[in-house]
């Protein structure tokens, strides 16, 4: 897709000058500068915890800077709060959507600024406005659908429309692609194009280099709270961006040693299952994973891969079929049995399944083993052993901030939360590791790290099943790629033979070959 820039360099809409934000002794933003022009897409790149969100929260009025100042459209402003930011035309779309689930799309968009007729909500006028906005920016939404019934991509469009409805012309998008499918990502890129064509400016917080290359004019890089620089995206390569962000050279190539896959660890035969509505989601699916191989399961979201993983790990029941681990049946077994039989997993939804967010890091690290020696003796938890393990894993897996053993895991950044899960599951060291979108929402440094550990498991002659929506990830890691479409495997290729077009075709249910 050819990208057209709509940036007008003569009009500066945001100038953040020499921003410092301290929390106690901790410097989250250390003299950061940011200049955004009309019609510009400005990416802010940084690792998890680099201070991107703090900077945006300063711009959005949630924090007041310790020093430095902000100019909006040429006028110096002290932004007192989100209400003030919105009045200045600054709107923010958060990574985790803030929508009222049982309300309709229209109701969510107008919430708090409803058109009224007397004391009554004028829902027809609201609906008209929503339709008009969505047509203007080519953002398809169903104004009458309830939030709980629509896709994540549409929910995000609702969030963007909500901000536009409030008259924003500077949009902050915080990790907008973190939960989107590849198709939804390319739709979002188009939407961003329509927005800038209309003179809006977009600040894009991300750590996905590909997206920055695809849609941003300029990119400001922050590392550990410090301002590294602002570059013209067209002038730099992805590798250069990555090393500016991380502060060292980053390799995207995963080096894998030659392995000959051994005996079959996971064998799934003819699995059939229905979802809660009674719709058949798995239609006689077969897949197997052997020792010393990474099998990548590629597919568009909603083709049954999530159900398959839940069935293998014991969280969901299948109607019929066979599942064995090292020859032992775990078909429709409870999670405890699946785990004890040799299955560990990095779940898709880390906050729902992977972590007890209110628990400390150390308590999350013993989620499956809290009743086992040495973490428990009889009925009692052995706090010193639990702490010692946490200290070791925090160090080994570089979970930040250091010394977070007793800190609730919800206080960690998303990337570090994921590291907690990975540390736990790698340490569990089971014969089969299932990783579902293991790098979702992570920055390149962390992605490199996760990939390294997945390959390491394989090199230790373990079986790894990688389920991912990121085709790049599947292609760079897998020894064998299986494509899932509409509840069964639509094709299988050797990792080194794979090419994107062929896989894309199979993911869409096209060709089937061996």
């Amino acid at each position: 897709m050819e990208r057209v820039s709509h940036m007008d360099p003569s009009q500066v809409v945001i100038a953040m000058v020499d921003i410092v934000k301290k929390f106690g002794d901790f410097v989250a933003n250390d003299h950061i500068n940011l200049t955004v022009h009309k019609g510009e897409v400005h990416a802010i790149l940084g690792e998890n915890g680099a201070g991107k969100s703090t900077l945006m929260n300063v711009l959005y009025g949630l924090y007041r800077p310790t020093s430095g100042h902000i100019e909006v459209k040429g006028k110096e402003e002290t932004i007192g709060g989100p209400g003030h930011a919105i009045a200045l035309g600054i709107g923010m779309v958060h990574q985790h959507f803030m929508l009222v689930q049982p309300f309709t799309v229209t109701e969510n968009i107008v919430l708090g600024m409803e058109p009224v007729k007397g004391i009554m909500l004028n829902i027809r006028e609201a609906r008209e406005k929503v339709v008009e906005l969505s047509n203007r920016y080519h953002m398809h939404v169903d104004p009458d659908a309830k939030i709980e019934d629509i896709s994540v991509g549409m929910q995000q469009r609702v969030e963007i429309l909500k901000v536009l409805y409030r008259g924003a012309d500077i949009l902050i998008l915080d990790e907008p692609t973190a939960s989107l499918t590849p198709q939804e990502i390319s739709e979002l890129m188009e939407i961003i194009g329509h927005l800038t064509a209309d003179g809006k400016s977009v600040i894009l917080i991300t750590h996905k280099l590909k997206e920055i290359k695809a849609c941003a004019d300029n990119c400001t890089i922050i590392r550990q709270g410090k301002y590294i620089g602002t570059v013209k995206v067209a002038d730099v390569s992805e590798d250069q961006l990555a090393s500016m962000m991380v502060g060292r050279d980053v390799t995207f190539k995963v080096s894998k040693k030659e392995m000959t896959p051994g005996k079959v660890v996971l064998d799934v035969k003819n699995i059939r299952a229905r979802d809660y509505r009674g719709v058949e989601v798995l239609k006689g699916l077969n897949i197997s994973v052997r020792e010393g191989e990474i099998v990548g399961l590629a597919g568009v979201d909603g083709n049954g891969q999530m159900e398959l993983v839940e069935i293998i790990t014991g969280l969901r029941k299948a109607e019929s079929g066979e599942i064995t681990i090292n020859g032992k049946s775990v078909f429709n077994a409870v999670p405890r049995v699946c785990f004890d039989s040799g299955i560990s997993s990095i779940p898709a939804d880390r906050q729902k399944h992977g972590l007890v967010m209110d628990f400390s890091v150390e308590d999350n690290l013993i989620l499956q083993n809290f009743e086992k020696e040495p973490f428990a003796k009889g009925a009692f938890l052995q706090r010193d052993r639990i702490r010692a393990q946490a200290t070791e894993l925090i160090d080994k897996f570089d979970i930040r901030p250091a010394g977070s053993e007793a800190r609730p895991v919800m206080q960690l950044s998303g990337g570090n939360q994921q590291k907690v899960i990975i540390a736990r599951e790698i340490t569990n060291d089971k014969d089969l590791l299932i990783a579902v979108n293991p790098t979702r929402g992570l920055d390149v440094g962390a992605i490199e790290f996760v990939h390294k550990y997945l390959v390491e498991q394989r090199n230790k002659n373990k079986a790894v099943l990688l389920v991912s929506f990121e085709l790049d990830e599947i292609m760079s890691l897998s020894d064998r790629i299986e494509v899932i479409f509409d509840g069964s495997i639509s094709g299988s290729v050797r990792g080194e033979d794979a090419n994107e077009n062929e896989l894309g075709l199979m993911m869409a249910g096209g060709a089937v070959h061996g």
Partner: protein
Amino acid sequence: MVKRKGILYSHAFYTLLSILFGFIVGAVLLAAAGINPALAYGKLVSGVFGKYKYIVYAFVYASPLIFTGLSVAFSFRTGIFNIGAEGQYVVGSLAALAVGVLFELPPVLHVILCFAAAMAAGALWGSIVALMKTRKGINEVLSYIMFNWIAFYLSNYVINLTVIHKVGGGEASRDINPSASIIFPEAVRDIFGGNKNANLGFFLAVLVAVIVWVIINKTTLGYKLRAVGFNNHAAQYGGINSDRAVTTAMAISGALAGLGGAVQLMGMGNRISQFSAQEGFGFQGITVALIAGSSPIGCIFSGLFYGAMKYGGTKLSMVDAPQEVVDIIMGTIILFIAVSHVLRRVITAKVEKGGRKA
């Protein structure tokens, strides 16, 4: 991010603030009703602190409330709202009554047996609700409330059985045998200002509070129950049988409330009278747990506070103030405690926004 935790972050500060607001609102209402608040509050204070004996009474009044408070606090920590503590309290006291009236046993053994019966009855009451929840998906709040009423009428039925009912009329049961009483012998009572109801209850309550704290924080059971309470999905993913954990939690919570019923019976009432309305020990336990912020140790103090208020409240009629003022004050405190979470967020957010200026 903020390393230094000031007073503005502490739960205790907001609790005390809420208590202060509760008294202010109480004062306003008293004044509106034409009663001098200074006079009423003066009576409340002197009614509790006037004599050593009175202070002991505050502890006696507090004992059952600490148990029901612990019951509710335990349920909160495991993600359940035990609004059924009232019913579990009633069946607990009923079971203790039956054992206390029907058996003749050596003193210490008799007491232990009464406690065991009360805990079993409370646990059973909670477990039935738990089974309905885990097997049939029936919302526990609904069944808890219904089981409160089942316990209420069950109690009125049981005390009218010939073997239980007081000989020679009266709307009450027989007294429990002296061997089942936990009231201290006279020599010990003299140490407590000669209070004729000075009993073991409070000491037991402290012991149980510590045990509950240990269970929640130090044991694998506590880990399991908290994991399920915070995030059922992650607990299941981690291999915890969440249905079983919920049932265990609800049974333990019920046993605690049942024990509260036994303590009140064996240390204070000696018999159970015909109910005309729910006595409210279980509901007051909700207040105790909320003031304590669901901390078991906190329940000792909030239970004492409520006990003192309740006992002091009985003296209010002497200054022509209605005893219900106490309920209003307690209710207001809960309201402010609920609001204080919001308040705390607002205040601390202001502090953080100001950065170093704070």
